[in-house]
């Protein structure tokens, strides 16, 4: 009866009469209101949506899993980057998967990214105030083309072109905002995604491990690359053209890569 409960959108059981244990995972001294340790990002291109994430699952200062999967498939044309409490994200994405499968049966066609975002946000909103922490970027391709929606567990639902989620997101945004262009070729997009996550793991203690890059195209999602952050982080190596980059012509292998477009380094 689990899915029927979700669809009814009301919590079935009353809260237990005993005091709930305090959430043991939240580091008490964190002033930062960002969700728990992770760096995930996604951005929209003409040829689809590129999503990338690190692989470190942290539990306070303890690395619970250095090789976790933070980009989870929902169906053939929809991925979700997860941030926040891993268990909440996994559970709610499983529920979303079942809800979308049901819709596909009933309507006879694939539900869109906006619809998936609305279903997820609605379900989370009904559970607001119960301590869920789910910050998900839904990346998909539907009838309207590439779609990217950010969903948070208070019910926030935003259609965006560029989104980075997690404790490492400010560092990732720094690189993304400078170099992102909606007409980027895919190879440059993969390199940018890798660079942004790798740089975030350099500065954020709660992000690390490896970088997974995915691309959602019209024909479905593909797992582009899985690179160790230690290898990517070395500046020269991070900037060297890889096989995919070389397709689109060599990029400049110099520190100038970090110069945001349109400004000069000399200005203060």
């Amino acid at each position, binding site marked *: 009866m*689990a899915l*029927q409960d979700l669809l009814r959108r009301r919590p079935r059981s009353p809260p237990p009469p005993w005091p709930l244990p305090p959430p043991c995972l939240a580091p008490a001294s964190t002033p930062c209101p960002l969700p728990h340790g992770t760096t995930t990002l996604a951005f929209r291109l003409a040829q689809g949506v590129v999503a990338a994430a690190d692989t470190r699952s942290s539990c306070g200062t303890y690395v619970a899993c250095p090789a976790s999967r933070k980009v989870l498939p929902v169906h053939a044309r929809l991925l979700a980057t997860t941030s926040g409490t891993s268990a909440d994200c996994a559970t709610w994405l*499983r*529920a979303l998967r*079942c*809800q979308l499968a*049901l819709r596909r*049966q*009933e309507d006879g066609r694939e539900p869109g990214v906006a619809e998936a975002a609305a279903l997820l946000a609605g379900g989370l909103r009904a559970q607001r105030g119960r301590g869920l922490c789910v910050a998900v970027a839904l990346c998909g391709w539907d009838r309207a083309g590439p779609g990217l929606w950010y969903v948070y567990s208070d019910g926030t639902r935003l259609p965006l072109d560029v989104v980075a989620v997690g404790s490492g997101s400010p560092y990732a945004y720094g690189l993304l905002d400078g170099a992102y262009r909606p007409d980027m070729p895919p190879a440059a997009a993969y390199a940018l995604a890798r660079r942004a996550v790798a740089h975030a793991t350099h500065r954020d203690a709660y992000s690390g491990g490896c970088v997974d890059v995915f691309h959602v195209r019209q024909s479905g999602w593909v797992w582009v690359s899985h690179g160790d952050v230690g290898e990517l982080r070395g500046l020269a190596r991070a900037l060297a053209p890889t096989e995919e980059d070389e397709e689109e012509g060599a990029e400049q292998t110099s520190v100038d890569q970090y110069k945001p477009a349109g400004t000069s380094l000399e200005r203060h």
Partner: protein
Amino acid sequence: MAARYDRAITVFSPDGHLFQVEYAQEAVKKGSTAVGIRGLDIVVLGVERKSVAKLQEERTVRKICALDDHVCMAFAGLTADARIIINRARVECQSHKLTVEDPVTVEYITRYIASLKQRYTQSNGRRPFGISALIVGFDDDGSPRLYQTDPSGTYHSWKANVIGRNAKTVREFLEKNYTEEAIATDKEAIKLAIRALLEVVQSGGKNIELAIIRRNQPLQIFSAKDIESQVAEIEKEKEESEKKKKKSI
């Protein structure tokens, strides 16, 4: 006698009948024929389709519905009741996947539908569902299944079965013709289903709707053209076998 005990579903008659359930079974007998065949690597559902009115869109008159990627059902009886059962069954298929991370077995979803029907024969203020269903599909281990439910909430597994109008005639045909050779290949199983329906359907292939599930493949609904070509093949075979009989005589 019956008149005093058939108003309320929750009242037994002195000789042990639940008349409302039996009347529901009468409603099923008025519905259009549906036949199900269990082959070795294929399950086939064939349904007699009433002619679609000229102005009506053909697509909305579907009597074979998928419950999940690997299970589908056909029904005989009240279409609206069937729609409710199908919706509930679809939700239950996904709910099962959510709780257990496995797709339903055909028997599980049949049991769910049968329990749903039985619940409606034991509450006041409700009436039984007026449909019988044929539920076909493949389990995880690859075995094909065919189940039939009726308005009382019982279900049984069958090798081949038929429900609705003229069910008796078609069942006799199936009992005679369901043999090892008849289901040896997918094509033969499909032909058997069509031959069974042609026993009772007037005006041939136009009024037949056919769907198959092959192992590890989704439901495949036959187009009118495919059905016509199969019917033409069957008629050719019939002619040839009759010619042979005449020659031998």
